[in-house]
């Protein structure tokens, strides 16, 4: 039987990779892919604890995380297309719309 701490370590590694990806990439699409990495790390934790505690609530919450991921992808990619239309680039260093 696999101890639950192994799943926690795997999830921490994936989450850490996602955080580093959000911080160091310049491409907006790559940043969104890193956000997907972080969501999947939390999903691994949810399912591992659901199996460990014999409680189905964790698996149900993965559904809601999946809903949030789908909504984020839809809105985020629409924003990317709108940005690419107005600025013709998706490099985050070119954007200063929210800078004051």
């Amino acid at each position, binding site marked *: 039987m696999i101890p639950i701490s192994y799943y*926690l370590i795997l999830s921490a590694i994936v989450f850490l990779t996602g955080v580093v990806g959000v911080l160091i990439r*310049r*491409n907006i699409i790559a940043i969104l892919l890193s956000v*997907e990495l972080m969501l*999947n790390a939390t*999903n691994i934790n949810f399912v591992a604890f659901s199996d460990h505690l014999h409680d189905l609530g964790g698996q149900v919450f993965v559904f809601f995380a999946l809903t949030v991921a789908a909504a984020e992808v839809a*809105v985020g990619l629409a924003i990317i297309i709108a940005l690419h239309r107005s600025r013709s680039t998706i490099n985050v260093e070119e954007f200063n719309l929210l800078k004051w």
Partner: protein
Amino acid sequence: MSQLFFGYFAGMIALTSMLVVALRNPVYSALSLLVMFFHIAGLFVMLHAEFLAAVQIIVYCGAILVLYLFVVMLLNVKQDDRYHSQWRIAAIVCVPLVIESIVLLAGGAGTMVSSRNSEPHDAVATDNTLAIGQTLFSTYLFPFEVASLVLLVAMIGAIVLAKRDIGEVR
């Protein structure tokens, strides 16, 4: 045997998640993310969550990743020539996670194996889909409806953002 499978799945998940960040071409990043989703589905099967494994493959690999690839190929993005020089901030953010991993690996690995895990799964393993459906539509009915509302709002927002002249006077 299960140790072997967990080792394979965990190794592939860690490797491909690092490839997602490290590869400079966004198409290759998306494809390695696809491999990671499949291996996470395998991990879900190991954890007696068969229905979630199917949903993971259908929704993530079938819907979300296809959307990513579509946008990547629509926008014709170039490769990143260099990364952000934010290694210091990234290191500061990741210090708690590294400490957590070290603590778990050193202290908690042996003690956290509970005896409950060895008994046969009654409701979780026998019919996973039935159990999830009953839980989702009885206990979590209101969050389920809220999730449908979130998806509706996201769909309307995506249409408004992507349609060029929807609020303008012609």
